[in-house]
């Protein structure tokens, strides 16, 4: 196994472009090291991106935040400004694994692991987050939901990697929230996860909303129809019931030891309503 710790983004893409099939980007390693042990495979090439300048920074830009690909999730929670503007994204990132995992894992890695149960992804999708990709042919930026293509599969091309996640400013009277369901208190993989982001009109009704559902399909579902049920409302009970019903309807979960299809479809509705309430309250305080 070849292990490289390049200093520039160009070196990363060049290495990845020249590497074999089993070439991997290493940031926190919380997925990669476990997979290498469990599946007992040896990587051809590991490219450690932690030494690259700026890769571990959270940057406030004119219209949002840029989160470098090597920023551990714990650092997001320690960033007061980010936590104020995007509390739901930060909460989601700080639900991944345990305290120790959060000290290493990254939201870019969580995205590229392409698990339908990734905690940070529904929150990012609801937030309208973008992934900035560096590759041998330069940079491109895509919505985060375009990255995962199904369990373990991404749309990244040979030589490409995500260098940063971009979170746009949500504007005034906005709020977001993420809730997930697990059978124990902490340290588990989401059985269902729901991210909600909404912005209120001046009269207090919901002007725009985004709802994203995790672990109820092969990849995270952006539930546009669900969001529409609450736009124009003040999140009264009929709106919440409609939101829950549509979220259940558009979910296509599998049954496994963590929950049946019926259970996941029901829980996704309950969590969507609860998350929407939190986001609504946050938007009102904004």
């Amino acid at each position: 196994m070849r292990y490289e710790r390049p200093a520039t983004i160009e070196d990363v893409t060049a290495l990845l472009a020249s590497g074999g099939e089993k070439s991997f980007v290493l940031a926190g390693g919380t997925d990669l090291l476990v997979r290498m042990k469990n599946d007992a495979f040896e990587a051809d090439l590991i490219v450690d991106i932690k030494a690259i300048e700026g890769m571990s920074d959270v940057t406030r830009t004119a219209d949002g935040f840029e989160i470098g690909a090597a920023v551990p999730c714990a650092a997001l929670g320690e960033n007061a400004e980010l936590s104020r503007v995007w509390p739901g994204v930060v909460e989601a990132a700080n639900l991944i694994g345990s305290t120790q995992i959060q000290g290493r894992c990254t939201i870019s890695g969580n995205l590229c692991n392409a698990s339908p149960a990734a905690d940070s992804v529904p929150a990012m999708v609801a937030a309208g987050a973008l992934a900035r990709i560096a590759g041998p042919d330069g940079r491109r930026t895509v919505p985060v939901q375009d990255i995962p293509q199904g369990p373990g599969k991404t749309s990244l091309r040979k030589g490409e990697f995500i260098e940063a996640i971009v979170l746009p400013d949500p504007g005034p009277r906005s709020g977001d929230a993420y809730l997930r369901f697990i059978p124990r208190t902490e340290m588990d993989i989401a059985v269902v996860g729901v991210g909600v982001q909404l912005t209120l009109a001046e009269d207090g009704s919901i002007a725009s909303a985004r709802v994203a559902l995790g672990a109820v399909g092969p990849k995270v579902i952006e539930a546009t129809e669900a969001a529409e049920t609450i736009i124009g409302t003040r999140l009264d009970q009929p709106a919440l019931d409609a939101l829950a019903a549509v979220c259940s309807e558009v979910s296509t979960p599998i049954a496994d030891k963590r929950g049946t299809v019926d259970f996941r479809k029901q829980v996704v509705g309950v969590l969507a309503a609860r998350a929407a309430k939190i986001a609504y309250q946050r938007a009102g305080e904004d």
Partner: protein
Amino acid sequence: MKDGTAPVTLRVAGREHAITSAPGRRLSEVLREELGLRSVKIGCDAGDCGACTILVDGVQHCACLMPVAQAAGAEIETLETLDDPLVAQLKASFLDHGAAQCGICTPGVMMAAVELLRETPAPSEAQVHEALGGVLCRCTGYRKIIEAICALDTPAVETRPEAGQAVGAPVRRVDGRAKVDGTEVYGADHVPLGTLLVRAVRSPHFHADFELGDVSTWGARRDVIVLTARDVPGENRFGTIPGLEDQPAIAEARVRYLGEPVALVVGAPDVVEPLDLGTFPVEWHPLGHSLTEAEGAADDAPQLHDHRPGNTLIRGRVISGRPEEALAGSRHVARGRFETSYVEHAYIEPEAGIAWLDDDTLVIQACTQAPVLDRDETAKVLGLPKDKVRIIPAASGGGFGAKLDLSVQPLIGLATLATGQPCRMVWSRSESMLASTKRHPGTMEAEIGCGADGRITGMTFHGDFNTGAYASWGPTVAMRVPVHASGPYRTANFRATARAVHSNGPSSGAFRGFGVPQAAIAQESLYDDLARAAGIDRLAFRRLNALRDGDRTTCGQELHGVGLGACLDALAEHWHRATHEAAEFNAGATGALRRGIGIASCWYGCGNTGLPNPSTIRIGITPAGQVMLHQGATDIGQGANTVITQIAADAAGLPLDALTLVGPDTALTPDCGKTSASRQTYVTGKAAEAAGRALRAEIMRRTNLPDCDAIEPVEGGLRVRHGAQVQDVALSGTQTDELGYAIRVEETYDPPTTALDADGQGTPYAVYGYGAQIAEVEVDLDLGTTRVLHMIAAHDVGRAINPQLCVGQIEGGIAQGLGLALMEEFLPGRTENLHDYLIPTIGDMPKVTSILIETPDPEGPMGAKGLGEHVLIPTAPAILNAIRDATGVAALNKVPVLPHRLRAAIRGHA
């Protein structure tokens, strides 16, 4: 230098270490194997357990998830490298509060705590939860850990009892220092230079025939030795119960469970560790398989053992009175069918050990609960005389029953005999979960009746238990369950039967309670049905039927020293308070949350069921006046080393710290049997009491005092005090025996039991312990989640030899009972890791109120009874009954009550 390695400089506690390593190697492995920092424990290699938690630049990290190259330049701290007043204070607090039981998670827990305490010197409980959320502990139930961290500033109560006052005092664990220092030696921690590594080639099938290819060429090409069943020199069968040994150390031609070893690979660690065992030459011919008791018992099920038709390992029964007639004539009858799952012990230490040759004796130092069984069975498999095998139990990083079976012992023994070199084996988490025993899954049907006055009239019970591929402790479950199925209640008319059925699941063995926790779920759920039907308060219903002194059990045994009534009485005020609070909460509830309370009791016979299980304790005094206690009971965290020492000291009249522990070690300690069946405090304790008394008599014989108040070692002998009189017994210069002792005593105790007849009548146990617990829970009706808020546990321990250790057992048992009730379900082939198999974390653990009841047992040492297994029996049924109270759902007949199961039941109920 191997290909792909590079120089790395690690800075550990300010000191630089230049090493050469593959850059992607796990930091945990490098710290342990290259730098010898063995306080860094490896429990899962996946970031699930936190045992390898260290500080990197002051922040807690799982060292197993950090490639060594990423640690270069950072400041690393491990428990043994920390030397500051805060850490000293934390270690003292852990000792004072009994926060370390087996101690395997302790270094990781302490490192996470150090990070917290550096920032927050006086943390709240919530802050401790937050900081320790990533470290699993399987022994303590976390409560004592939280106390130790939160009460860091509270000065410890001095507990150095006077001679004769040790019993009843909350003395510190006598073997605790190494646990809090991180220097305790577990199965994976003793690695002399030149030790070879052993790995097993395991079956990828549940049931298959196989043919090995050219294994020697395969091995030679890779510079390793391959050992197969053909290389086993003795009888390739081991087991736990005489006559039922059926498990090959290495499979011969057929495998019966997923993960069964078919060959060993032995060689240099850097060769064996990265070896791809997927290329091992073996051809598989998969066979049909069964995984449940129902599948195993089916007419067309694949048969596992030729001599056990129908896959029936054994049946057990207890019959008294006329149960059918009694039920027919009952005013109220409750019946139900209950199912429980495979439950994994999930100790944080996967099985590990090392073997070496000392002249012509094979020495094995591995984690175990049963050193003499290990010796005898390993000797048989390896074709050695028993006295040529010496077992030195390593400190056990948790056991809970599964380390009562052989694991690595015959395998590393074989490798050592074949190579002449020290050989070690360290199972990965998934190997441990594949190859270790489990709690028996059970399918139980029961029917219980009572009169209009609420008195139990009769009961019938049948349980089928999935005993998996090999016998292990299946027979014990099949016997214990019928004996205990009535619960600790007067049941004049009774029939209970149990059957242990083979399947191709993992072997079910011993797990804290031997099937009794499963049976208690059936019985205690039906008691709630009956109490409701009879219109009697649920606690009062149990009090009405509770066994009392002079009552006879369903086996016809007359009981004495029954403290169940006292336990229930002690719970009454809590029950009324909790009832009131839950009703008040629910009256005001508008959302999805509802509260409920539940109660359940337990009883449990201490020691083997109707079979001899003697313990022998030896005490010797050297001419220099040193008192040596040869104590062979393995301490797996429960505290046998401490409790046995307390009893021996008081019986002898010596101060506690005058005794020096020897063993366990089959070469140095007489047989104290197995650490099972909650027998050590009682059986070995009784032997220790007898040995202490005998020692005192021997000493007194050398004086002319009529009696003594205390004995103390002095230079060259002993000083005996009787009131104002003092006499010295000079030992220096006296003749010594072959062990070098001037005085030596040895006493054996075996419980006075009888074998059970065909109807299960007799005296299966000489001592029983009793208890009852209340659960207060909060259920989210929309999500089906249950949060246990508070457990109140009253346990009759006869005499609390060490109250702090008793409470530690209660809290730890409750954590495991909570897991059994709410989250733990081992699915063969799908949950062999600690992220798919969930055990309670610090955040799941409720507040626990422990109440120790001391109704002396006439037989137990100083009145003491066992406790270790009793504590988890009532937890699951109390929680189930509380969920029913909160939701109104009566159909909770399968554990764990996973949220999707509870939601489905709530929907069905609505």
